[in-house]
């Protein structure tokens, strides 16, 4: 439980040029991939002040202010590539909006394609776009977590992200201590360990 979290500096969209954004819904199994990936990335690495790592959740249009302030945008998400489950894919540049809109699996993707389009209209589309997507195995386990196949791809997704970031001149530093609750990327209540441990062993599985 986080009870006294306040860190305006982390939340203020003022001074960054690189945005690492996880989107998706942690409540729907593999739909949570994007969030779990940024959570794991942020737990292991720290970044310079020009980088923001955020949990965008299921937000659509309200992510626009974040995206517009970024020159470089790296997105983690679960994407329907029509490939075998747990296939990981890196998409770059103009292909990113196409992939986010081609086969919408989820609310936030409808919204996010519009976010990119709105950013473009406003003249603030990030110069660099990258999407690290995973093909989900299962979505409709309500209250469930990542399937093992998809969970196993998180380290590979992070490795891909570090390559992209390196290319962008962003250096990641391995953290030497655990994150304080104030510095988590999302509410501690939804952190993967509490989320999985807090699930009742009976009665809560709606599959």
């Amino acid at each position, binding site marked *: 439980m986080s*009870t006294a979290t306040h860190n305006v500096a982390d939340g203020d969209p003022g001074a960054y040029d690189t945005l690492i954004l996880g989107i998706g819904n942690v409540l729907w199994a593999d739909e949570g991939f994007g969030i779990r990936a940024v959570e794991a990335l942020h737990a292991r690495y720290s970044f310079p002040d020009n980088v923001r790592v955020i949990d965008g959740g299921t937000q659509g249009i309200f992510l626009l202010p974040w995206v517009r302030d970024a020159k470089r945008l790296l997105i983690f998400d679960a994407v329907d590539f029509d490939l075998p489950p747990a296939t990981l894919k890196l998409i770059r540049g103009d292909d990113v909006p196409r992939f986010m809109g081609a086969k919408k699996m989820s609310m936030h993707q409808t*919204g996010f394609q519009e976010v990119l389009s709105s950013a473009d209209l406003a003249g603030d589309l990030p110069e660099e776009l990258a999407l690290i997507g995973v093909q989900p195995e299962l979505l409709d386990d309500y209250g469930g977590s990542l399937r093992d196949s998809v969970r196993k791809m998180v380290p590979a997704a992070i490795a891909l992200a570090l390559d992209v970031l390196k290319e962008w001149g962003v250096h990641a530093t391995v953290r030497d201590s655990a994150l304080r609750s104030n510095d988590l990327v999302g509410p501690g209540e939804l952190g993967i360990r509490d989320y999985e441990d807090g699930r*009742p062993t009976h009665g809560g599985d709606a599959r």
Partner: protein
Amino acid sequence: MASVSTPNGFDLDTSGQRIVVDPICRIEGHLRIEVNVDENNVIRNAVSTGNMWRGLEVILQGRDPRDAWAFTERICGVCTGVHALQSVRAVEDALKIDIPANANHIRNLMMLAQFTQDHIVHFYHLHALDWVDVVSALSADPKATSDLQQSISPWPNSSPGYFSNVQNKLRRFVESGQLGIFANAYWGSPAYKLPPEANLMATTHYLEALDFQKEIVKIHTIFGGRNPHPNWVVGGMPCSINVDDTGAVGAVNMVWLNMVKDIIEQSIAFTDQVYLPDLKAIASFYKDWGAIGGGLSGKNVMSYGEFPAYANNYTNESWMLPQGAILNGDLGTVHDVDVRDPDQVQEFVAHSWYQYSDENVGLHPWDGVTEPKFELGPNTKGTKTNIENIDEGGKYSWLKAPRWRGNAMEVGPLARYLVAYARGREDIQAQVNGLLEELSLPITALFSTLGRTAARGLEASWAAHKMRDVYGELMDNLKRGDTATANMDKFDPSTWEADVKGVGFGEAPRGSLGHWVHIKDTKIKNYQCVVPTTWNASPRDPAGNIGAYEAALLGTPMANPEQPLEILRTIHSFDPCVACSTHVMSNDGRELSTVKVR
């Protein structure tokens, strides 16, 4: 059965041509509308289907009630804070926790900011393009646009050069062939009535509203510590405040509080100098829509009340916008709404993809059951994974049918304004009367698509001004030396009673929102959310009463059924957000943005 009269006073005729619009939302949401039109293309039957399931009630069973707010925030792509607020209120109610005055003020500020932001985004980014022809804006004379702008508002961005720049930017965007966000519209339709200059002015403000969004969300970041998912806590607000630089590191200090004050003033300026003048200018060309799309609004409307002036007082002596229900259009009698009364708020599932042991009765949310059952009526055309025409005689929506004392109700800004008006709230009456006078419209014009859109604009301005008042109260309280923001006395589950129930209720931008929780042995036993869009987009109930969307579409003349602009205008006037009502159930998430005429 081609023709039938519903108990709530509407005539339905299913004999004409069937039209399907799926999905209906410009940016967010999954909603399908089917209508039948007669030989004159007037809508004679309407069917509203929420085609996703959310599963939240199931997910929360057995979880820690103190965490519920964080889960409920993830349901919706638009309004995170409103679910978090009702969730913490529900748990505080169950555990009899009083929150400090500062927490109440801060929650009010965050919610008022949410209302202002949400209404602006709705008007410019989700609804305006139903009225504003972006392509027509390309042929506007920037000088004439400047004259128009200066005649209606002191807003400084009004020079011919400014509008010319915007027009060039827009032209490049349109000519690039990637209409993107403007793709799903019917440009050039004769249903668009604005002159090119008004189209350019409104499109320009579409862009300015995108910029303004960046400012107003900072209020959530400052008090919630994080955006887009601010922190909340059962017992108050999880931020400490430090007005004299002696408090904890990371506390909200005067620099941040001054920034909040600046954003509030910007919000007032934007709603009063941009949003409201645009609304009036656009409305003056669409006055006929003051007689279209009324549906339930002239009959049954409801508000739970919102923005408590006094901490822990959720009654009309405290609500800045009052609770109440109006039945059969009788503005002279406002009924009290009690969300705890088992006979008042009930949900039915006879036409919903859920099952109860007896589907003729409704269940109060404390006794609510959310058990999915996907089956199609015998007259469905198509298959389970590819429904061509839904059968509204059977189960046909992932939304339940909530009713108040058995009545289908409309909720939202218009409902709130009608309840406040009928309750004699002078601030609301002054706003409403002033607008009607300026547009030379009768009060009955409120019961319409135009009325819904107008009430939202008035409320955005009201909310921006209220932020200024609440900010003053917060600062006064802080100066008196009270810096408490949370009451953690009963945070520890060992202090809780074994078996308790609570309800968190209030108003979200889209309408009445309630979370009902039953806590047993420190875990959630049952959790039910009844959300605004479930009220408005509700399917029929066992008695045959139709919901607010369905009612509002009846009688609407369509210029061309292949271009269902009229359906979009009315449904969008409700600010539909089905994300929180529903979620993907089918594995086939392939999305179609199509109109089908059958």
